[in-house]
Structures are given as C-alpha cells and as structure tokens.
C-alpha cells in the first residue's frame, strides 16, 4: 500500500450482483469499481435496468453483493450486521435519500422529532444539545421551527425532501447516497434542493453518490460520472469531458435524448434501434 494524502472515503471494487428470475440469471451489476474522495461527488447515470438502484442498495447494505468489496474509510462495509453497535456504525458510514421521502420519514412523527430520534440513537444524550442540533440541521436545509413541528404529509414535496436530507445529515455519514432524489420534485423546487446539495459539498467533507437519469442535473452536482448500461460501466470520467466528448455510443444516445429546441426525436429512435442487440423498441 502506498501512502495517500487523501484517503478514499469510499472504495468499491469488482462489485457484482445477480438475480434469478424464473430460472434465468440476470446480471444487475457487473464488475463495478470506483473510488470517492472526501468532498467529491460521483454521478451514477443510467436508465431502468442499468443497475443504478441495485448499486445504491448495495452501498447502504440493503443488498448483499455476490462478489466485490465496499470499503468505507478503509473499513469493509459489513455483510451482516448484528447488534446495535454494528448497526450504528454502518449507518454512520453511508446514508441514503430516496426518490420518495415518505420512505425515510415516519408518517406519524414531526420531522423535528424524527431528526431528534436519529441524534439520540447516535449517542447525543443531552436534550438541549439535541434541540439545538435539530434546529441547526433544519436551518442548513432551509427549514424552520414551523416545519420542525409538522408531520411529513403537511409539508410540500420539496420541504419533505429537504427534511429527508437533514435526517441523513444528522448521522454525520461519511458518504451520502442520493437515489433519484430530485426526480420527483417540481423544477422550481428541484433547483432549491440542487443548490442545497452543492452547499453541502462545499461546507462538509461528505462524499456524494448521486444516482440519476438526468445528465444536466448530474453535471450541476457532480465532478465525475459513471454511465451504466445493463449493469456494465461504459464510461467513468470527469463530467465535463463526458458531456463534451462522450466516447460510448450509448452515452452519445443519452445526450442526444435530452429535449431541446430544434430536437430531432426521429434520429434518436434509429440510433437507439441500432444499439439494441435484440432490435426491440423499449
């Protein structure tokens, strides 16, 4: 091992996951490797069936890889977690924000109480210190006391997603995984959350893994991107290079698919047909 001035936050090597559906084996993720340094943001770009969500789930331990390793700050992410200490350690390693914040917020608790619970679980005993930290976390995502008292269903979609981000940040994770976390938001509200993510990058050393199908949004949040297609990594490069000179035909297709004035969807159809080995329209 060579000495490295900035040790990797997250090191993924040779990750593989297969599923069995009715006798046939489907490779969801095949030989995925990447390294994330402190404060870096990696975009994982792909369409349905690319393996991007399976990757996100493996990173937080919801799925067990068939092969490969996930190291968080040099420590392997445990395959099995037994006991409170190990569970808390894994939660501190990686947190996730899903597309639908209802999945990570308790519907019957005010969001302030949800964040308070996360802090208590992770050992912040003093109630006054917790209350101050809850306020600080909510302020960081642009929410105030009124929202702290509100149940998730009484918040707007954007407020809910910001609350889910605040809950994830409460744990002070090394890595934050965002799985299509801005896809369901209205554009005006999406911009608020995107700015919040770039502030988090600037103000903390948290590494972001940003899973998305939207190249423009990936460009805004990330410095590197990895393009997945049917589980395989097609390209992994700095975002600016990837967008300026995409190497793989599939990356070029994805770029051409972004609607804009003067857009020609017909040419995209024929290019897509020529890429697909089975020649089937999706």
């Amino acid at each position, binding site marked *: 091992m060579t000495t490295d001035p900035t040790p990797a936050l997250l090191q993924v090597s040779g990750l593989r996951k297969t599923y069995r559906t009715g006798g046939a084996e489907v490779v969801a993720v095949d030989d995925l490797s990447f390294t994330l340094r402190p404060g870096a943001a990696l975009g994982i770009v792909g369409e349905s069936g690319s393996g991007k969500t399976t990757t996100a789930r493996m990173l937080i331990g919801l799925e067990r890889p068939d092969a490969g390793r996930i190291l968080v700050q040099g420590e392997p992410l445990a395959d099995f977690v037994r006991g409170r200490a190990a569970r808390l350690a894994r939660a501190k390693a990686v947190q996730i924000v899903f597309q639908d914040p209802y999945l990570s917020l308790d519907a019957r608790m005010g969001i302030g109480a949800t964040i308070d619970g996360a802090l208590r679980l992770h050992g912040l005993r003093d109630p006054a210190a917790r209350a101050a930290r809850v306020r600080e976390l909510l302020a960081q995502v642009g929410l105030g006391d009124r929202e702290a008292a509100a149940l998730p269903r009484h918040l707007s979609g954007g407020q809910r997603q910001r609350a889910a981000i605040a809950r994830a940040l409460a744990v002070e994770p090394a890595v934050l995984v965002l799985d299509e976390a801005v896809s369901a938001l209205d554009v005006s509200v999406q911009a608020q959350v995107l700015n919040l993510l770039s502030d988090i990058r600037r103000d903390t050393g948290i590494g972001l893994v940003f899973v998305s199908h939207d*190249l423009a949004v990936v460009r805004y949040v990330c410095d590197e991107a990895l393009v997945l297609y049917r589980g395989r990594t097609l390209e992994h490069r700095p975002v600016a290079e990837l967008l300026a000179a995409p190497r793989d035909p599939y990356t070029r297709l994805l770029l051409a698919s972004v609607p804009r*004035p003067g857009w020609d969807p017909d040419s995209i159809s024929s290019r*897509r047909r020529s890429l697909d080995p089975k020649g089937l329209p999706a």
Partner: protein
Amino acid sequence: MPLLEYDALGVTLPGTARPILDGIDLHVGAGEVVALVGESGSGKSVTARAALGLFPAGADITGQVRVAGTGLVGADAASLRDVRTNRAAMIYQDPRAALNPVRRVGDFLTEPLRLAHGWSRNRAAARAAELLAAVGLPDPGRHLNQYPHELSGGMLQRVVIAAALTTEPRLLLCDEPTTALDVSTQAEILAVLGRLQRERGLGLLLITHDIELAAAVSDRIHVMYAGRIVEAAPVADLFAAPRHPYTAGLLGSSPPLHGPLARLTPIPGAPMGLLESAPGCAFAPRCHFAEPGRCDQSPPPPERHGPAEVACHRTAELTAPAANAPAPAAFHASGKEDS
C-alpha cells in the same frame, strides 16, 4: 373552427380557497401542437380532462370548452359519448394503469371498434394490427395476444397511442405521456407522436412539467400557475424573451447541459395549494419583482405584449427596451436567494 377551444373556463371546488381553473383561454387547431406547462397543482391535468368533459365531482363550472364545436359544459350523454369515442383521445402518464392487466392487448385495442362501431372481430383485429405497426411495434400479430406484463413501459405506451387512434380522432390529448419512461424511450415515443401528428394532421395538446420538452416538440406554449395561464407565446419567443417572471424563473431553474454553469436561481417557496389564495397575482408571494400595493391587490388580466399574451402587472416595465439589460437578464439579476 379550432379542434379544441377553451373559452374562459373556470372550475371551482366547494371548500377551497381559490378556483382550480380560472379564465382558461386556449385553442388547438388541426395540425398544431400546443403545450401546457406547469408544476404540480397548477391545474394542467384538470384542463386536459375538461376536453373530454371530465370535471372534478361537485365542481362549479363556468365558461365553456368545445371540441370540434361541441360544447362540453352542460352537454348531454350522447354528445359526450360522441366526443370521447370519435373526436378526442387521451394518453395518460402511466400506460400500465391504462390497460387491464388480465386482458390481452388485442382486447384493449379492438373493444372500442367492436362495441362502439359494431365491427366484426376479424375486421377490428386487422385494424388493431395495422395500428400497432403504425406506432412502430415490431410484431403486431404476436403483441395482440400478449398481456400488458409481457411488454416494457415504452412498448405499452405505444399500445396506448395505438388505442387512442383506433377511432381516428382528430384531437390527441397527451397528459405527461413520457414522464414515466426512460429518457431515450421518451425520444422514441415523441418521435411516434410527432410522425402520427404530421401524417394525419392531428391537433395535439401536450401537458407537461418539462418546459424544455415542450419547447422541443410544440408550436406554442402556455404556462400555467395556480389555475391561470400566465404566459402564452410561440416557442421561440418564449425561450428567447420570457415575459412573465414565473416563466423566466422556470427557465432559470433547470441546470443547462452545455455552456457556462452558474449557480441556479430557484423560485423561492412552493407552488400555491388549493387551500391558499392571494387577492392579487397568485405568483406575487414568490416573485422577485412583486410590487407591494399593486401586484398583491388585484389579479393581472392577460394582455398582449408582442407575440405573447402575459398576465403580469409589470410586464411592460420589466421587458421595456429602455431597461439596462434584456428581459431574461433582468429577471435573473435579482440579488435575492432561495429561501
């Protein structure tokens, strides 16, 4: 006579603070693609459904919406059925919700022809196969015998488009037709819709939250906010010089794919719910340019400004050529940050 015409359509539900729709004026002619862009709760889907005579239960309706001259507000069952089976067809966001999961694709496609038009099974099946080929499905004969779960989302949306065309309506209503699909599939579906629209001279109303998508495929864009149309303009004009602060805000909210990357200027706050109302312009509480005592007093009526129709008290001053900067720059130059 336009294929579709909204004439000051208003829809109000009891127990809400503001109308769902307020003074909607819009028309779609043959061979025209018109987009209606808005965020959630803006009323764009309610507007689209009104074109089939579908209104929220218990709603109070004012104004009129006409399809090929037939008024749908207060229409009798026979004229509603005629519009829904022969004149207009709707394509929804989620094709899986549009098809019965335990019936074959062929049943879904042939039912309107057999029940509403009395066609024989064989004649209807032949027509269905023809339509599946027209929407670019590779093996129509086989697909007719398949169940929805055997097809991908993009293939199913093609089936839904084929079904919409069975009775050869002149008007297609598309409510977020590609939102549930992958980006490259989206392009394919829009290519199919565009080709059919051109070949058959259809009028198409596209409902979408994606202003870039609207710009890519339509002739005119109407931007909705809190139940009102705040700006309507030809696509090129709307993009080059948005005249309503909300339109400018929407354009400034999406990060660009190419070119310089500046910090986004989001519209602060959130869209107005049905239980909130504002005495003046509905956008005023979120608007960087709102002028107290004016914008919060009375709702701005739509007015013509060049090629566009805009409902904003301050459009004339904000877009005046005498201003130091062109309109979009002025809109984005505000020092305020997102809340």
